[in-house]
């Protein structure tokens, strides 16, 4: 293999830096009308009156759509279901009726000849509400939280074992609401052509949006096409269809004209978010550092209309050996929009709680945090008592610790300093799933030796274009430059949403399967050539390399693909196949990591600097060490933000998110990010899938916040369990 495994720069890089890459809000079109959204000022109640008169009188305004005058949309809530939304509940229906379910809910759409006119007219829409009592505070609503029956089955008797344990640790850890804040604004450009719609939408799943819109507007699939060729970040916020897409379609159908709708940054805060969650951990251990019991309870917010939740608690009993384990997941319904997946949903929050609790347990046991984890190390999935396809977490601990210099750590809190700063070293484990999905893919090989690979997956900025080109180039035996990749178009072969870190494995195997069809056909063509050097070769011996069809046993023997095609009078070979993964419930599939963080804390002022992070990752075969490293670094930066900065502030008496902009919602800036070292430990895996790929999009964030929180404790002797760890929590 020439390209797989090598650090390869993004093939779409030049298009992105020159502006040639067009995003959803850039799609060029003539005769566009522009939309501006008016949103609800209150979190719950009814729209008593909505007066659009003044807006309609503005020159250049084409229409103002509200629940009173909008074109037809499906009535049944079920028509608004999408591929990845919660099973329980009925999805939000924009501009559907007069009900207000959250502050920031879209309640009118102003359409005008120009964006500025639409935005001005939007400021003139007058709304009277009938407000109703509401609730937005998890810390209050936890009392009413209801249990969901999703967590893994318990084992043993955790309560009893905990009560009897020699060493016990029990605590609550809190993660506030966080927002994805991708750089690109949510936008949809709906191009209208004789009743047919082509929609450029910011989404992680063009087919999901396509199916959703067909269902909501009762449109035939061939009348609607959804494209998302480039995305300026998603982090999960674009897995479900967001309201800009149906509103753009609504507008295009109302005006019978092309429409562009770009949301504002403020409006994006009412799309979706990581749910505020309380993680309650109770760990019982024997003095030697083995676990007797693990109890993990999560209480998270969801909306009033959908039950969103992910696996927060199951990681605890999966990761560490304990004969007794129990899990509870509860939901507190609040008057906010439905939460959504955000980078490693469930694990990011659940493992934060678990890994801080393990650190506290190590302190109570007076043993090194790595030693504790090794004593509880499990080579088998603890839920189902099955082995992993591979698990090189021990290597992560070892290599990460060596790179970090962990053996020089003085375990005593406040014992290490650098002048006026206290130095803290903390570590944590990360874990995520290695998922893979059935995916269809098409390859067209033309007689000039060029291949086009196409699939409906989106590249949300992670590097999918690049790895598709690498894998296809290797498996087709072509130079990287001879491969063109088309993604993010609902007319392309079917793929699931781009999420869950499953894209690399899913798309690579779809390439492998389809490329194999091409290989077979090229073999037949090569054999048919007069005096073919491959005349006697069996298919098993045939490989594609350097633009040639060769005999693996004697690579000198072969013919150029272009010659074979010319002789066979074929100007193109085209294959589309769907790859399905073999069912295997005898193995668990996971990625793992060990994260080490150094913080320096000004003793007097509490100012925290994360000066070093080492993240050692075991994630199977790494397709592209450059883009994969960027994914892990991005995850670590997200983890720094989670640990120290990120928090959506809600005024619970107004029911509104108050820092809904990226000046006041803090994410790390350059000054907050220092050395991040990424180590990919060797993890060959022939069981997870034929190519041994596990995916790296999410594992980088899991555990990072815990490693930093544990480092802050080590530096200061203060255990801050409520994120973010702002300096005021260290004063005093």
């Amino acid at each position, binding site marked *: 293999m020439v390209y797989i495994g090598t650090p390869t720069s993004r093939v779409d890089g030049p298009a992105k830096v020159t502006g040639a890459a067009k995003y959803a809000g850039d799609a060029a079109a003539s005769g566009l009308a522009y939309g501006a959204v008016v949103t609800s*000022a*209150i979190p719950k109640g009814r729209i008593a009156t909505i007066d659009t008169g003044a807006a309609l009188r503005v020159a250049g305004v084409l229409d103002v759509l509200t629940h009173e005058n909008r074109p037809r949309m499906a009535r049944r809530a079920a028509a608004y279901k999408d591929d990845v939304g919660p099973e329980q509940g009925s999805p939000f229906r924009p501009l559907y009726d007069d009900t207000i379910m959250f*502050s920031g809910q879209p309640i009118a759409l102003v359409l005008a000849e120009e964006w*500025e006119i639409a*935005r*001005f007219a939007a*400021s003139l829409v007058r709304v009277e509400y009938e407000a109703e009592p509401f609730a937005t505070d998890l810390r209050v609503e936890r009392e009413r939280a209801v249990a969901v029956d999703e967590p893994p089955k318990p084992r043993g008797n955790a309560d009893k074992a905990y009560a009897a344990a020699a060493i016990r640790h029990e605590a609550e850890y809190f993660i506030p609401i966080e927002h994805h804040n991708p750089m690109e604004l949510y936008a949809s450009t709906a191009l209208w052509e004789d009743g047919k719609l082509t929609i450029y939408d910011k989404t992680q799943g063009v087919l999901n949006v396509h199916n959703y819109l067909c269902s909501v507007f009762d449109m035939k699939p061939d009348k609607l096409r959804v494209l998302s060729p480039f995305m300026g970040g998603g982090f999960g916020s674009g897995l479900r269809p967001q309201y800009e897409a149906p509103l753009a379609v609504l507008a295009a159908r109302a005006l019978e004209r092309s429409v562009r709708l770009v949301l*504002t940054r*403020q409006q994006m805060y009412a799309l979706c978010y990581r749910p505020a969650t309380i993680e309650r951990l109770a760990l019982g251990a024997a003095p030697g550092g083995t676990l007797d019991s693990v109890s993990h309870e999560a209480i998270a917010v969801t909306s009033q209309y959908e039950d969103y939740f992910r696996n927060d608690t199951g990681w605890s009993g999966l990761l560490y050996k304990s004969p007794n384990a129990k899990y509870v997941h509860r939901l507190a319904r609040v008057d906010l929009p439905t939460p959504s997946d955000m980078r490693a949903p469930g694990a990011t929050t659940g493992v934060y709680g678990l890994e801080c609790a393990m650190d506290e347990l190590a302190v109570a046991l007076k043993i090194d945090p790595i030693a504790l984890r090794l004593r509880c190390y499990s080579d088998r999935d603890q839920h189902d008592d099955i082995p992993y396809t591979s698990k090189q977490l021990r290597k992560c601990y070892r290599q990460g610790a060596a790179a970090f210099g962990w053996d020089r750590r003085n375990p005593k809190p406040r014992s290490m300093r650098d002048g*006026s*700063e206290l130095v803290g070293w903390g570590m944590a484990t990360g874990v995520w799933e290695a998922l893979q999905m059935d995916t269809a893919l098409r390859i067209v090989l033309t007689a000039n030796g060029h291949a086009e690979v196409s699939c409906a997956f989106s590249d949300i900025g992670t590097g999918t274009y690049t790895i598709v080109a690498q894998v296809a180039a290797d498996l087709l035996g072509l130079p990287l430059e001879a491969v063109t990749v088309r993604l993010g178009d609902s007319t392309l072969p079917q793929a699931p949403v781009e999420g869950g870190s499953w894209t690399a494995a899913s798309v690579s195997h779809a390439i492998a399967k389809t490329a194999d069809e091409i290989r077979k056909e090229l073999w037949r063509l090569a054999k048919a050539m007069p005096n073919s050097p491959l005349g006697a070769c069996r298919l098993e011996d045939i490989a594609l390399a350097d633009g040639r069809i060769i005999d693996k046993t004697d690579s000198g023997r072969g013919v150029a693909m272009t010659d074979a095609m010319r002789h066979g009078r074929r100007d193109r070979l085209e294959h589309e196949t769907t790859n399905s993964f073999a069912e295997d419930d005898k193995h668990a599939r996971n990625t793992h990591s060990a994260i080490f963080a150094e913080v*320096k804390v*000004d003793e*007097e*002022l*509490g*100012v925290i*600097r994360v000066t070093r992070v080492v993240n050692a990752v075991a994630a199977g075969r790494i397709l592209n060490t450059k883009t994969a490293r960027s994914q892990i670094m991005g995850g670590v930066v997200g983890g720094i933000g989670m640990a*120290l*900065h990120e928090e959506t*502030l809600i*005024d619970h*008496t*107004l029911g*509104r998110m*108050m*820092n809904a*902009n990226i*000046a*006041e919602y*803090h994410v*790390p*800036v*350059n*000054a*907050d990010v220092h050395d991040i070292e990424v180590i990919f430990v060797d993890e060959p895996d022939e069981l997870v899938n034929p190519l041994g790929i596990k995916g790296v999009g999410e594992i980088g964030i899991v555990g990072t916040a815990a490693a930093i929180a544990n480092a802050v404790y080590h530096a200061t002797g203060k255990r801050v369990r409520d994120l973010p760890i*702002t*300096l*005021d929590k260290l*004063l*005093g």
Partner: protein
Amino acid sequence: MINFQYARATDIADAVRQIAGEPTAKFIAGGTNLIDLMKENIERPSRLIDISRLPLKQIEETGDGGLRIGALVPNSDLAYHALIERRYPLLASAILAGASAQLRNMASTGGNLLQRTRCYYFYDTATPCNKRAPGSGCAARYGLNRMHAILGSSEACIATHPSDMCVALAALEANVHVAGPGGERVIAFADFHRLPGDTPERDTTLRADEIIIAVELPARGFATHYSYLKIRDRLSYAFALVAVAAALELERDTIKEARLALGGVAHKPWRDVAVEKAMRGEPANRASFARAADAILRDARGFEHNAFKIELARRAIVRALTQAAAGTPQSQSVKKIR
């Protein structure tokens, strides 16, 4: 954003004439604050009078050894100007502690003085706010008030002034030169920003028909013993929780002259001349710095989320004065606190 007219001012007299004739108009300089506020429908000017091309971009020496800074000198140019770096490094440092490089390139000296509070409620027209809509109430008082005042607040408003540059200008006793229909006048920096009282909608004593033309620095620059220490929720690009401008003149280890101004704690850069006076003749050590901190904070009061700022301010003051006395001012590029 609402529709507005746009006109360019040809000279200072024209700018004054235009604004006097249309009280609902607004000057626009760098636009880094005004445009944001317009997008959120907080500022709704009928007309923007563009003053960005007026000849107010000079930094000149004055007869009495000071410097006169034109109102349109960009924050970056000011921070990196050789005379400022050499004679008023406290000002350079404060400017570089604020915003981002891109914003500082656009932001003007006059605009920086007139930037408005970052109170969340002020920015959200769906919420009550006396400063934005007088009489509607102050949502921050019982709401989210982490960024809010611990000194000089009123029943009506507990907002802070967000500027870093102004904290240094207060410490340096700058003067603000303004022009209006009746001619020019000079406003001492201490009198330029106001406390909220019953009229929090007014941030400053500048009249609606006046334009800032320059900021003048007196000769005394405290170039040897100074420090600007800004404490915030991330290491750059965030508004101050507490900022301290400290400047000293020492004779051996005794304080001859002291300046101490605080940012992020009040509706204006906070100074207390009596405290500075009491510092004179004291030894330049932690004990006297702590006394000064206690004195300047004696009337401080916290609200639900910002009470920590009192202790934080106390420690930051001691630290900044210590840095100043030692001649090791806080670096704005290296984030480790000295």
